[in-house]
């Protein structure tokens, strides 16, 4: 089976190989385990990029293969981050409180109150909200990383798909969902520190001895592992019969329904599964970023996610990964203020000001002229030509790549 699976999907081996080489190279060049040529902040950036690649993978599954343009997947990403962040904050604060305790040993209630004062003093309250009930336990919070976003996706998906909301409507609705969640979290009363969010997440309780240099590499490994596993799982899903049904739903939902497939069930399954992948990516991302707050799940983030996948090339998994890595890294470079100014003679282009304009326009150009995105470039390099089918509807929505994908 495995043999067959891999031979049917040669891209998996190449992808995994490239990923391991990349991880190995970064490790060797890192501060903690090698030549100290790549700074810790760079390792963190790369680790975070891998997490973004993972959520791009999820986005590609749900959009490129299933045809649901979800503008809300960052909600699940953020929720995953929040769930892990709650434990990180609680446990770190508990260590601080215990280490500074004097006099009588604390009752559990006193300990809880002291932790609450420390965590919520910043936002002007000192009571532990009910949502933090499990924050003291790592396994419980890790389970919640999957449970909370999974449930949200399940409920939302069930409501939306049952009502047969499709197309642009569905996109707007997912956007409304993530906006509602962001606004809810922005409120202080929601118990997750409002606009301040959860911070100091990079300090892992119990691992203070390791230092950020080593932690960053470990998280890079974890992110690479998650991405590799995610890639395997995604390939497995899209390559079998299930994948064929997914593509069929994307191309013509009504026909698939008439053929007797439970379209809503398929959609719900994929939507929830990708929400889970997004949540895992988020849970790995935020301990590297160090802080999570509601702005992270504002609708714009999810739209950028769609941009990455579109630029990378949707409808193929490694395209999405490539797009996320490429666009987010280039974005970081241009907005960092380090890109040299471009002197046009009559006007000096400062990239900090003009990068967004460039990104927006190049995005328009990609959708107009290169619907396959960057992965189209790779096709050119490898001499692969899409089947020329003049007259017949072309483009991913109409299933131009069906034949090609069937071979993969």
């Amino acid at each position, binding site marked *: 089976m495995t043999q067959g699976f891999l031979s049917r999907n040669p891209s998996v081996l190449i992808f995994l190989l490239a990923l391991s080489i990349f991880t190995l190279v970064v490790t060797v060049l890192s501060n903690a385990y090698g030549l100290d040529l790549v700074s810790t902040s760079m390792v963190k950036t790369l680790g975070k990029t891998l997490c973004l690649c993972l959520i791009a993978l999820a986005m590609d599954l749900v959009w490129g293969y299933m045809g649901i343009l979800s503008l809300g997947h960052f909600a699940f990403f953020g929720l995953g981050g929040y769930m892990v962040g709650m434990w990180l904050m609680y446990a770190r604060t508990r260590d601080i409180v215990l280490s500074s305790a004097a006099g009588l040993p604390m009752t559990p209630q006193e300990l809880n109150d002291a932790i609450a004062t420390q965590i919520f003093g910043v936002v002007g309250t000192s009571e532990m909200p009910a949502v933090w009930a499990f924050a003291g336990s790592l396994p419980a919070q890790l389970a919640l990383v999957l449970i909370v976003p999974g449930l949200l996706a399940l409920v939302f998906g069930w409501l939306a798909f049952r009502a047969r909301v499709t197309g*642009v409507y569905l996109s707007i609705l997912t956007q409304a969902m993530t*906006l509602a969640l962001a606004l809810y979290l922005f409120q202080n009363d929601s118990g997750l520190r409002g606009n301040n969010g959860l911070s100091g997440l990079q300090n892992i309780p119990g691992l203070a001895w390791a230092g950020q240099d080593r932690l960053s590499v470990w998280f890079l490994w974890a992110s690479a592992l998650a991405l590799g596993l995610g890639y395997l799982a995604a390939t497995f899903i899209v390559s079998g019969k299930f994948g064929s049904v997914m593509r069929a739903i994307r191309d013509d939902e009504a026909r698939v329904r008439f053929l007797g497939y439970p379209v809503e069930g398929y959609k719900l399954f994929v939507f929830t599964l990708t929400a889970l992948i997004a949540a895992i990516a988020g849970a790995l991302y935020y301990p590297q970023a160090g802080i999570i707050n509601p702005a992270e799940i504002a609708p714009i983030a999810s739209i950028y996610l769609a941009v990455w996948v579109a630029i990378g090339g949707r409808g193929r998994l490694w395209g999405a990964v490539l797009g996320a890595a490429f666009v987010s890294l280039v974005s970081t470079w241009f907005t960092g203020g380090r890109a040299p100014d471009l002197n046009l003679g009559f006007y000096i282009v400062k990239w900090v000001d003009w990068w967004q304009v460039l990104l927006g326009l190049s995005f*328009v150009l990609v959708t107009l002229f290169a619907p396959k995105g960057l992965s189209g470039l790779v096709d050119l390099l490898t001499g692969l030509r899409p089947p020329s089918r003049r007259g017949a509807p072309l483009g991913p929505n109409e299933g131009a790549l069906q034949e090609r994908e069937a071979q993969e």
Partner: protein
Amino acid sequence: MRRLLLALAASLALSAPLCAQDAPSEPSPVAAEAPASGLAAVIAEHKADIAKPSRQSIAPVIAALGKAGPGAPDFLEAWADKALGSRKSDGAIFRVKKAGAGYALFDPVTGADAGEAPRAEISEIKPNAGVRGLIAAALIRFQLSDPDIAKRQAALTALSRDGGPQHLEPLAAAIADEPDPAIRAQKERMLGLLTIRFGTDPAARVAAIEGFGADLGLDFRAALNPLLATKRQAFNAAPEGNVAAELRPGKPGFSAEEAYDLLVAEGRAPARLTRADLRAALEAHIENGAVAGIPLADLDTPARRDAAYTALEGAGAVPAAATDDEVAQSVAAHRYADIYAEPDAAVTAAAASALKSVSLKVDAMHGADLALDALSLASIYFLAAIGLAVTFGVMRVINMAHGEFITMGAYTGYVVQQHISDYTISILVALPLAFAVTFAAGVAMERLVIRHLLRRPLETLLATFGISIALQQLFKNIFGTQARPLTAPEWLDGAWVLNDIVGISYIRIAIFVLALVFLGLFLFVMNRTRLGLEVRAVTQNPSMAASMGINPDRINMLTFGLGSGIAGIAGVAIGLFAKVTSELGADYIVQSFMTVVVGGVGNIWGTLAGAALVGGLQKGIEALNPSNTLAAQTYMILFIIVFIQFRPRGIIALKGRAAGD
């Protein structure tokens, strides 16, 4: 002449230190020079306080000035108008006027020319708003019968802010010979209010209260409510004083805990032992790592701590804490009541009944005000969403850059105002220009981008989003990140006020009218013109329309331009009452989407219904939870997500074939 002035200034500057040196031995020069008029003497006496007044301490000075005879009102007015200055060298007070690089000085009492001084020599006297209020109150009695109607009006305004018992008599005296009927009515109303607040004769006060009937004025309620202020008290026997209500502990609204806390606060019972006190008491008695024989490590549960405390109590090391029985006993031993601060029962009864009859009306008015707010918000959403609905209805294209078109309209208004300084004309120019600019931008976008993506709606969504981020950043690069002013013409200043509760600003009314105009215009174009006919045909079935000789490309282009143009006009309207920044449009885009989705596409009435629902809902939720506007937005979106469950195609959905896209 100039030289002369300079010399004068220099001599003043030179003489100043001399004066300062002399000051201790002689009375201050102003006082010495002053005529026998008391005012100058009073000013000189209080010059330090006048120069740096504080509301807390200035009252006696103002009173003294007020009594100081002729010239006092003028001096007080000048003081309140920040037209006085004090000379730094000796603190003498002058009226000052900026002249060239320095100040022209005038005598504070007579207004006679007193030379000039360089800027560094004079510090301007700037009494704060509180002091200015006191000055205005002191001026009231001079102004109540002033021949100048503006001054009488000012006196009444000051009375409404800082009226006191001392004004009752002068006000009553000033009513009879008041020539202006409007001012006279105001004076009578004010006399009534002052009588309610400060009158000494209960019968007169009750009569005054009843004289107002169910008046909606804020000032009437403001006069009544303080009369009904209560204080909660505990009594050993029957409650004394003007009792508002007697309370029984344990009943809703007054728990036994509250009763005991009241007793503690009044010093009638000992405080209960709190957990923190308990902890502190135990910590004070740690001996050899144990408290009362219980090892420290065991003291991490409340039960063990109680045990330790009881042990300490037994040893007499700590005072005995009140037990639950004792608490219950002392609560039961007292009676509790809310007592009016106002001693006269007749007055409080009249006030309570007046307030009761007003309150129902007030609630209704609040409802009406809320409805106006909702209507205004709905008309804004309608204006913002109408263009979106048109393009979506005809072309099935969601234009994510719609918000940026709104911004573009607002910036057009700003640019026009930079060139045309008359606000009325500039708005009249800006509205059509904004339409033209955004129309052109819309047409360009349709030709260059949308046309090539017509059968790929999801990709249009993304491509227009790309345009949106590019445009937004472009605005930032051109206009900067700061908010830009866009000012409404003067005739739109202020608000239409029905009474103290219901009111709405003229700008909002103008936006409402604008929305109505566009609704009418839109209906006209759609139902009465050739273009409208063609648009409706393309909306229903593009290919059939094409085969009838309609050019769908042209129609698409025109509708897109039209939709964008309306967005531009909405931008000018929104810019007038909010801020003009590059994010202006983005703030409204989600609400616009909601409006379109809720309303249903392809029908202007749907958009109208959607806007009304979204706007009304938002205001309604805001009213339920006034301290958190953010929550209102959250719940509104949740409601819409649920709403879509029941009407996936919106309130007014297209029927028949056209719906099956």
